[in-house]
Every structure is written in structure tokens, then in C-alpha cells.
């Protein structure tokens, strides 16, 4: 029968040993924060560049000649400004949904019959979408209204009423900054790296130094031993997580949502990778070889799972590879919860993670031997 007392006393001894080792503590807690600071600083320049504005032109004409197409002229004029870049959205798309799907908040919709109303001198509205809390929305509306004023002045009619006016629609989508997605990525990174490297090392090192033999002479079971390691890495992951979001928010103004949806990922992640690390450690009792095998397993996962950059920028075949990596589902799940608020997606990621975790845990306990034949 597994004993909580044994698990807890092993947890106490292991965590004590860990905390007394400054290198481990540095690697576990400080290193991910340093990564956030480095990557955050490298990419924080993004916000001073041009702002993307999604535009949908519903005015289909007919136009006697292109110079009568006021909608297109308006969009071209906006695009010529140095502050924004217009991205055209197909007129059949549901615009609000399109913005949400692209994690964007700034948009502009030109209604049908825009040009004909304009030439007939009838008042017409363009709709500007924006999130008032976003720093870009002010720039977008200022740019758009500047261009519209110019059109109004140019084609000023005798009744002196500006014929184009702006209606605004509030969008809740936050514009995602690099740091927003960097934080879930690096949380995933620390969930992967800490338990994985540590367990690979421990399980081969303990074999070499005969510590496992020593432990096998006590009533502690392999499952209890692994459980206490998992408990420690969950504690460490949560501490590291809190530290990272604090730094992300304070230093880079990251927009991330914190809620209970994160908890299962912070519990399952370390369980998964501690088990995987122990599995790798079963392959050999030479710590150097184990380290190499550990790196072979860890590094592709580290770079291809969306930790440092989004999966979407990778070529399709690499994206396909990412889908077989356990870390992918954890990082995607964290992104879904923290950045996109997409809980359905997170639930799927969680289910996949739970299945992989169970398999690895059972295999690790079964295959690992601390006695010799």
C-alpha cells in the first residue's frame, strides 16, 4: 500500500537537498525569468512599428470608372499613412469573428453602397473596430479620422455637413504582443526542462552511485519515490510560474488571464516530464549517456512546441511534427487559457496531456528497476 508518510518524508528530504543546492535553484527559478527578460527585450520593439488594421470593403459598386470607387481610395489613403498597414479581409467573412480568430482588435468596415451614397451626397458611416484599452486603438482611430476628414474636405458639399462619419464598435480581443505568448511558452519550457533534466540525471546518477540500491533496502517503493519527485517539481513549477508572470506583467505589460484552467496544466506537466525523465534514465546507468539521450528527447520539444516562437510561423511539416510532441499540448493549452480564453481548445489539450501523462507514469514505474538481476 502506498504510504503518504513515506512520500512526504522523501519529499522533505529531496526538497531540502534541492534548496541547499544553489545551482538547482538558479536553474529552476531564475533561469526562465532571465529568458523572459532577454526575449521580451529583444522583441519589445515590435510595438513601435506599424499597426495592422484589418479592413473589409463591402462596397462592390458598380463603378463607372475606378476613380468613383471611394471605398478603395479611402483604404489606399489609410495604407499610405506611415502608422498603419491595411490587411484586407474578404467581404464574406464575419468580421468580428475574423478579428477574434486573429487575436486582433483593430479593424475597419466600409458598408455596401458607400461610393454611391458619397456621390449622391448622402451621409454614410464607416465602422472602426477597436479595444479602448489597447494602446493601438487610439492611433488607429486618429489615423482613420484624419484620412476621412481629408475626403470630407475635398468633396465638401454645399450643405456643409461632413458626409462620411465614423461609427465605432468596441472589440474585446486583446492584441497579442510577443511577450503575451512568450510567457505561456516559457512556463511550458520550465515545466519541461526542470523535471526532465533533473530526473534523467537523478535516475542514472542514483544507479551509478548505488543510491537506488540503498533506497530499495527501505520500505520506500518506486512509485512513492517518483511521486515525491513529481510533487516537488509541481511546487517548483508553480513558484516559477508566479515569478514569470510577475516579471512579464511588470516588465513588459503582458496581457495574460489567470484562472483555474491553468491549474491542471501546472499539475500534469511536471508529472509528465518527471515520468519521461525517469524513463530515459532507465535506458542507461551512465549519467553522461543518459544526459545525451535526455537532450535528444528534450531539445526538439523545446524549440518545436511553441515555447520561444509561435507554431504558426513554422512550415507545415514542422507543424505536423509539433503535434506529436507532448509539450505542444501543454504550451497550446496554456496559450488557450492565458491568452486566447479558448477553453474548449484547452480542454482538448488537457485531455491529450492527461493520456500521455498516465502512459508515461505507468511505464516509468513499471520499467524502472532499482535492484539488479
Amino acid at each position, binding site marked *: 500500500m502506498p504510504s503518504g508518510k513515506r512520500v*512526504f*518524508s*522523501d519529499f522533505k528530504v529531496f526538497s*531540502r537537498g534541492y534548496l541547499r543546492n544553489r545551482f538547482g535553484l538558479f536553474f529552476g527559478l531564475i533561469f526562465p525569468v532571465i529568458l523572459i527578460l532577454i526575449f521580451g527585450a529583444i522583441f519589445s520593439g515590435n510595438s513601435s512599428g506599424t499597426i495592422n488594421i484589418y479592413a473589409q470593403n463591402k462596397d462592390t459598386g458598380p463603378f463607372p470608372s475606378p476613380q468613383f470607387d471611394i471605398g478603395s481610395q479611402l483604404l489606399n489613403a489609410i495604407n499610405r499613412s506611415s502608422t498603419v498597414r491595411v490587411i484586407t479581409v474578404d467581404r464574406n467573412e464575419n468580421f468580428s469573428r475574423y478579428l477574434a480568430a486573429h487575436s486582433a482588435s483593430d479593424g475597419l468596415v466600409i458598408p455596401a453602397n458607400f461610393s454611391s451614397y458619397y456621390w449622391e451626397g448622402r451621409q454614410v458611416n464607416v465602422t472602426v473596430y477597436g479595444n479602448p484599452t489597447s494602446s493601438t486603438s487610439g492611433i488607429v482611430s486618429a489615423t482613420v479620422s484624419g484620412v476621412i476628414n481629408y475626403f470630407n474636405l475635398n468633396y465638401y458639399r454645399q450643405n456643409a455637413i461632413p458626409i462620411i462619419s465614423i461609427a465605432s464598435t468596441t472589440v474585446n480581443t486583446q492584441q497579442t504582443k510577443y511577450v503575451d505568448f512568450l510567457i505561456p511558452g516559457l512556463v511550458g519550457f520550465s515545466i519541461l526542462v526542470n523535471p526532465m533534466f533533473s530526473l534523467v540525471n537523478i535516475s542514472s546518477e542514483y544507479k551509478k552511485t*548505488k543510491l537506488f*540500491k540503498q533506497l*530499495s533496502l527501505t*520500505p*520506500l517503493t518506486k512509485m512513492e519515490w517518483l511521486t515525491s519527485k513529481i510533487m516537488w517539481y509541481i511546487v517548483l513549477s508553480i513558484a516559477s510560474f508566479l515569478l514569470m508572470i510577475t516579471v512579464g506583467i511588470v516588465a513588459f505589460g503582458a496581457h495574460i488571464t489567470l484562472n483555474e484552467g491553468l491549474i491542471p496544466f501546472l499539475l500534469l506537466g511536471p508529472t509528465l516530464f518527471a515520468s519521461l525523465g525517469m524513463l530515459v534514465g532507465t535506458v542507461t546507468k551512465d549519467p553522461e549517456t543518459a544526459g545525451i539521450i535526455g537532450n535528444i528527447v528534450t531539445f526538439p520539444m523545446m524549440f518545436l512546441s511553441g515555447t520561444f516562437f509561435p507554431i504558426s510561423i513554422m512550415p507545415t511539416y514542422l507543424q505536423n511534427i509539433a503535434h506529436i510532441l507532448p509539450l505542444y499540448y501543454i504550451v497550446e493549452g496554456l496559450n488557450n487559457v492565458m491568452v486566447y480564453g479558448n477553453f474548449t481548445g484547452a480542454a482538448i489539450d488537457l485531455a491529450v496531456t492527461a493520456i500521455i501523462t498516465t502512459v508515461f507514469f505507468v511505464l516509468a514505474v513499471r520499467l524502472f528497476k532499482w535492484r539488479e538481476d
Partner: protein
Amino acid sequence: MNPIDVSSLKKYYGDIKAVDDISFSVKKGEVFGLLGPNGAGKTTAIEILEGLRQRNSGDVKVFGLDPWKDGYELHKKIGVIPQEFNFFEKITPREAIIYYANLFNVKVNPDEVLHDVLLEESSKVHFDNLSGGQKQKTGLALSLVNSPDLLFLDEPTTGLDPNARRAIWVVIRRLKAKGKTIVLTTHYLDEAQQLSDRVAIMDHGHMVAMGTSEEIIEQYGSGERLEIHGSPELAEYIKTNTELEVDYDKARGEIHIPLRRKADALEALTAAKQSGMDWGEMRTLQDSLDDVFVKLVSGTIDEHGEITVQKNENNPDNGRH
């Protein structure tokens, strides 16, 4: 029932016969010394008894249990220090004792255990800062946490300086006085002789001798001999002029003459006097366990347990050339 009963135990690694058909019993309250050079099969044998290794064949019962199949139960009843005892680097002996007490679910006063193994002064030092002797004492302390009646000590003093070794001996004697049964492997002959009630000598997986030190010496020793400090020429002179068997130990510059009867000594000394040559110190003595050991495993054991074959040095002809 004896605490340990072993019969026809065999353990092979491929073609290597690590333990080849050994049988022995260990009685309650005795210190049983398993002696032999490195690679003799001591550790393999003791680890099979501890339930850490599986055997190929043979009957092994420790407290009536099969150590491999019933290892989990057995481990609650025995104490073990594996060879080169190791522990978590940043944990102190005191914390280690409390940890083990929790694992075994027993109530233990850590100070008492530390006192028993003479480790009170280093009770709060991290394991990686302890000396070799203190590390071994930590191992001893942990093996005592579950109050076992049977202890396995696998080379507990290997690599320790003489003082640390003697301190461990004190602890082992105290445990014996408390009535514990102890199985001790060692490649130090003096250690085996000092501590053990009975000794078994292993070589190449075989048990080559077993009994008290006296019994082994009597059975395998060559009896009394005369040793004279002198030259190879003197050895040759005695050899030529008497019926005696004469060996010359070049390394020590000693003439060795086995004595079949007391009068042999007189004959040798008379010949020596006749030779007109000088000689130094002389004595008669019996084989020690050391000497018997050299005969049985055909070599001596160095500090690290490796065998050094000394055939050449014992060859009387060697001295002439």
C-alpha cells in the same frame, strides 16, 4: 533456525562464475567474516543474501525468507551498508536518520543512534562534507534505524585511514555485544581476524576455507618454521649440508625452514654456524591467517583488495641470480 542458511548457491554472469556453488550458515549472534580478494564473489554473494541480486540456483534463506522474492518483507528485518555507502549530498546524518525512521515507520531517538555509531559531532554536517569514516558511520547509523537483528556490512572500512577503521571496529564490537548477528565482508585479514567469530575465505567464486581463524590456520597452515635473517649463500649452504627444506624470501632477506620436529631447528643452526657466515635476527613462528590466505588464494591482497602474486619472491633460486 539459523538467521542465514545457504546451500549450493550459484550466480553466473554469462561465462563468469561469480559465485560457484557455495554453502554456509550463519548462527545467531555471531560475526561471520567473508574474506577474499576483489572479484572473489563476496559482494555478489552478500547482495544475493540482501535481496539485491537474483541467484541462478541454490537455496538461500534469510530469517526463513527468500531474499529475492520476499525482499520487501526481509528489508524491514535486516540492516545493510552497501559497499561504498552513499547518500544524498546535502542531507545531514541526523536528517538521514529521521528520514529512515519515517520510511520504516519506527520511533527512533536520532541522538541515541548517533551516539551508538560515534557520530554525534558531525550530526549536522552535510553528507558531502563528511570524511570517509563519517560517511561509513552514517551508513551504519541508517542500517540500525529499524533495530535489525541481522546486519550486513559490505567492506565497511575499505579506503579508511587506520584510526577511522578502528573506530568502526569499536562500533561493530558494540553491536556484537548487543547480540546482533553480523555478516562482514572485507579484504583486510586483520579486520576479519579481529572481529569475526568465524571466517570464510572466498576465491574465484569458491569457498576455499571456513571456520574460526585458529581452525583455518591449523588445517591449512604449515605448522612451525624457523626464520633466519641472512644471505642467499647461507640459505644455499644450509640446504646443501642438511636434509632440511629451505626457502629464501628475497624481499625480506630471510631464510625460511619448516620444522617437522624441534630438532630440525638445532640442525639448521649447527649448519649455519659451520658455514662461518654472518646471520642476524632469528625466530620460530607459526603461520598466521595472512600466511594461510596467501597459500589459499595464491597471492596477497593489497590496500585496494587486489591480489599480488608473490610466487617469484618465494622462490629460493631467485636469490642467486
